[in-house]
C-alpha cells in the first residue's frame, strides 16, 4: 500500500504539445507536431525560414486555432482551461501591436492591472524600463517608438506580469547588442525562478551558450529535441561541433532523406511505365 502523502509527485511538463496540425490554403504549416518541455529551462527554437516557428509559437500562445492537436501548459489544456493557461503564459511577438492611445508606461500598467500584479509596480516598471533603456520615453505614445524600442516594450510587457512559460518570437532581431545581453540575463533569471522560455532566433552563437535545450523544426515537424551533447551524438558529429554545424547536419539529413524518397518514387514510377 502506498501512502498518498508520501507518494512521489512528478510535476507535469511546463509545455506539452501533441499532434499539433495547422494548414493554410491546403499547405500544412504544422504537421502532427509533438513536443514536451520541462520547467526551469531555456529552449532555443531553430529552423529555416518558413519552417513553421512563428506559427508554432502563435498556436502555443492560443493566438491561432490548430486544426488538430492539443497544447498543455503546466498540465492545463489550452482549450479546456483557457483562462488558467493565459494566466501562466506570456508571449512576445515578432511584430508587436500596441494601443495607439496609451504610453509606454501605461501599457505596462495595463498588463500588470489585468494580472493583478500592481503591488510594487512602480519599482518593477522603472527597473525594467531602465534595464532596456526606454525609461526616458516612458511617457511617449507607443507609435512614436522606434522598432527596437517597440520590441523592448513588448519584452517589458512580458516580464511585468507573473508567468511560467514565456514564448519569444525572434526577440533580438531589432535589439542593440547591450539590450540582447540584458534580455539573456533576464531569461537566465527567469529559468532560475522555475520558468520555461522558448525562443526562436537566428543568433546561433548566443543561443549555443544561453540555452539548455534546442528544438529543431522543419516543414512543420520536429527534427530533433535535446541538449547540445545529445544532438551532437544524434547527428554523429564530433564533441566540438557547434550548434550551427549540428543544425546544418540535421537539415542536410532531412534533405537527403527527401531526395532518397523522391528517387525511390521516381524509380518505382519508371518501373511501372516500363513495357513488359
Amino acid at each position: 500500500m502506498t501512502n498518498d502523502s508520501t507518494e512521489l509527485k512528478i510535476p507535469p511538463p511546463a509545455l506539452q504539445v501533441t499532434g499539433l496540425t495547422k494548414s493554410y490554403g491546403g499547405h500544412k504549416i504544422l504537421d502532427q507536431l509533438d513536443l514536451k518541455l520541462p520547467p526551469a529551462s531555456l529552449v532555443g527554437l531553430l529552423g529555416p525560414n518558413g519552417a513553421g516557428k512563428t506559427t508554432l509559437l502563435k498556436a502555443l500562445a492560443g493566438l491561432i486555432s490548430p486544426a488538430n492537436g492539443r497544447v498543455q501548459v503546466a498540465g492545463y489544456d489550452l482549450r479546456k482551461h483557457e483562462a488558467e493557461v493565459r494566466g501562466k503564459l506570456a508571449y512576445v511577438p515578432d511584430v508587436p501591436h500596441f494601443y495607439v492611445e496609451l504610453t509606454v508606461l501605461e501599457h505596462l500598467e495595463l498588463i500588470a492591472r489585468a494580472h493583478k500584479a500592481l503591488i510594487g509596480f512602480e519599482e518593477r516598471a522603472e527597473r525594467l524600463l531602465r534595464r532596456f533603456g526606454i525609461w526616458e520615453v516612458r511617457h511617449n505614445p507607443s507609435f512614436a517608438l522606434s522598432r527596437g524600442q517597440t520590441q523592448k516594450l513588448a519584452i517589458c510587457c512580458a516580464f511585468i506580469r507573473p508567468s511560467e512559460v514565456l514564448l519569444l518570437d525572434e526577440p533580438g532581431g531589432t535589439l542593440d547588442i547591450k539590450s540582447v545581453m540584458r534580455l539573456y540575463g533576464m531569461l537566465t533569471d527567469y529559468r532560475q525562478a522555475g520558468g520555461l522560455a522558448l525562443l526562436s532566433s537566428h543568433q546561433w552563437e548566443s543561443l549555443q551558450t544561453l540555452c539548455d535545450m534546442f528544438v529543431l523544426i522543419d516543414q512543420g515537424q520536429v527534427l530533433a529535441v535535446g541538449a547540445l551533447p545529445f544532438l551532437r551524438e544524434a547527428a554523429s558529429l564530433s564533441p566540438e561541433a557547434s550548434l550551427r554545424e549540428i543544425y546544418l547536419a540535421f537539415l542536410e539529413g532531412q534533405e537527403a532523406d527527401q531526395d532518397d524518397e523522391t528517387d525511390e518514387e521516381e524509380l518505382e514510377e519508371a518501373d511501372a511505365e516500363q513495357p513488359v
Partner: protein
Amino acid sequence: MNALFYLFRRKLDYTVRRVSVYLSYEPDSEALSEKFYGLYIVLLLLGWTIVMLALTVSWLGNQLAKLHFTAAEYDRFLFLGLGGWLALTPWLVYRGYDLYKFDLADLDFLDNVPLSPTLVTLGWWGRSLFKLPTLIFTLICGIIASTVSYVSGGQDWVALGLGLAAGAGIFGIASGFRWLLGLLRYRPGPTINGWVAYGSSGVALGILVFFPWARVIFWPAALVSWLVTEATGDGLQWLLAGGALAGLVVTLLGLVFGLYRLARTVRLAPAFEEGKLGGQYRLLTGVQAGAGGLREEASLRLHLGRRYQQNQGLSGKADGALRVAQPKFMGVAAALFSKQWLRFQRLPISQTLPSFLILILVGAGVAVALATQMQAQASVIIFIQIAYLSNWGLLKLGVGPLRRELSHPDFFVSWPISRLRLMSYCLIAGFGLLLVSGEAGLLVAGLTGLLSWSNMGLWLTLWGLLVAFDVLALLFDFQRQLKKWSASPENIPNVGTGLVLLVGVVWLFVMLSGLQSSLFVAAAALLMGYSFLSSSRAA
C-alpha cells in the same frame, strides 16, 4: 522640373489604369476592338452624364419653382454661402494640418530629388485641385446655375457652362487663399495663432453679413454668385459674364503670384514632418480601413501624433504623471475599463461626439421603430426592412470595440481570461450604449404618447432580449471566424451578411408573433442561442 512632371505623369497613369480596371478597358491594347470599346465607353458615359444632368436640372427646377424665389434671392443665398467660406478660411487654416498632403512615396521622392520649395508648393497646390471634391463642387455649381436659369426661362445649357466655370474658379480661389495663409506656418516668423484666426474669421463674417459694401470686399463670391444665379436669367449679358469670368481669372492669377512669392521663403522640413504623419493616416484609412475598419484608430493616431509633435502629452499635459497605485482596482475588467477611460479622454471631441450621437440615435431609433411598428401591426414588408436594416446598423456598431481589440492580437493573448469572456466584455462595451439609448427612447416614446404606456414593461424587456440575442449571435459567429483567423490585424473578422440575415430572421419571427407572445419567442431564441454557443465551445 522634369522630375516633377515625371512624378505627376506616373500618378496620372496610375489614375487612368485604375479607372480602366473599373471599366474593363485595356489602354495599352492595339486591338481595334478594344479601341472601339473605349469609344463606346466614353460615348456611353457622356450620354449618361448629359441625361442625368438634364433629369437633375428639370427635377430640381420643378421643386425650386414651388418656392417662388427670385434670381436675386438665390444670388444673395449663394453670395452669403461662398462669402462665408472665404471668411472662415483663417479659422480653417488654423485648425488645418498637413497642407501639402504628401503621400509617403512623395516624401521618398522628394528626399532623392531636391526640388525648390516654390516648385513643390505650386506643384502640390495644383495637384490638390484635381481631386474629387473639386469635381463635385464644380458640378453642383453648374447644376444650380442651370436650374436657376431653367426656372427663370433662360438658356440652361449656357448657364451650365458658366456655372461650371464659375464653380471651378471659386474653388481655385478659395484653395489658393487657404494655401496662401497656410504657408505662413512653414516659414520663419509669426504664424496665425488662435486669436488671429478666430478674430479675423469673426470680423470677416460680421462684414459679410452687416457691411453694405460686402460684395466689394468679397468680390470673388459676388462674381460667382452673380454668374451662377443671374447671368443667364432673362437675357444673356455676354459682356458682363465675360467680365466676371475675367475677374475670377485675374484673382486666381494674383493668388498664384502670391503663392509663388511666399513659397520662396517656405521651409519644407516641417511640411515633410506633418506629411509623414498625414501620409500614414491616409495609408491607414485607405488600406486598412477597408480590411480592418480601423479608420477611428487612424484618426486617433493622427490626433495624438499632432499633440506629440507639439510637445504636448497625450492628455494635453506636458507630462502624464504615473497614475497607478489603487491596487484594489485590478483584474481584466478593471484594466479594460481604465484603458477605455483613457481612450475616451484622449479622443478628440470631433470624433467622440459624432460616435456617441450615432450610437444613441441608432439605439433609440431602432427600439422606437420596432415598438411602434409592432404596436401598429404593420405589414410584413415593413417588418422585414426593420429587421434587416436595424440589425445591419446594430451589429456593425456594436462590434466596434471587439474589432479594435482584435487589432492588437498579442494583447488579446495577454489577458488572463478566456477568449470568449474577453469577447463578451468587448461586446458589452459595444452594445451598452445602444441598449441604454434604446430603453431611453422607448420611455420617451411612452411619455409622448407614441407608445402605449401600459405595455412599457413588455417593450423594455423585449428590447433587452433582442439586444442580448444580437450579442449572443455575434459571440457565436466570431468564435467560429476566429478559428480560421491568422491573428493578423490586416484581416480581422467582421460582421457578414449571413449573420445579419440570420439575426434578422429571428427578429422577424419575434415581430410577427404579436405583442403578447413576442417575449416568449425572443426568450426562446436567446436560450437556443446560448445552448448553441455552449455546445460549440465544448466541441
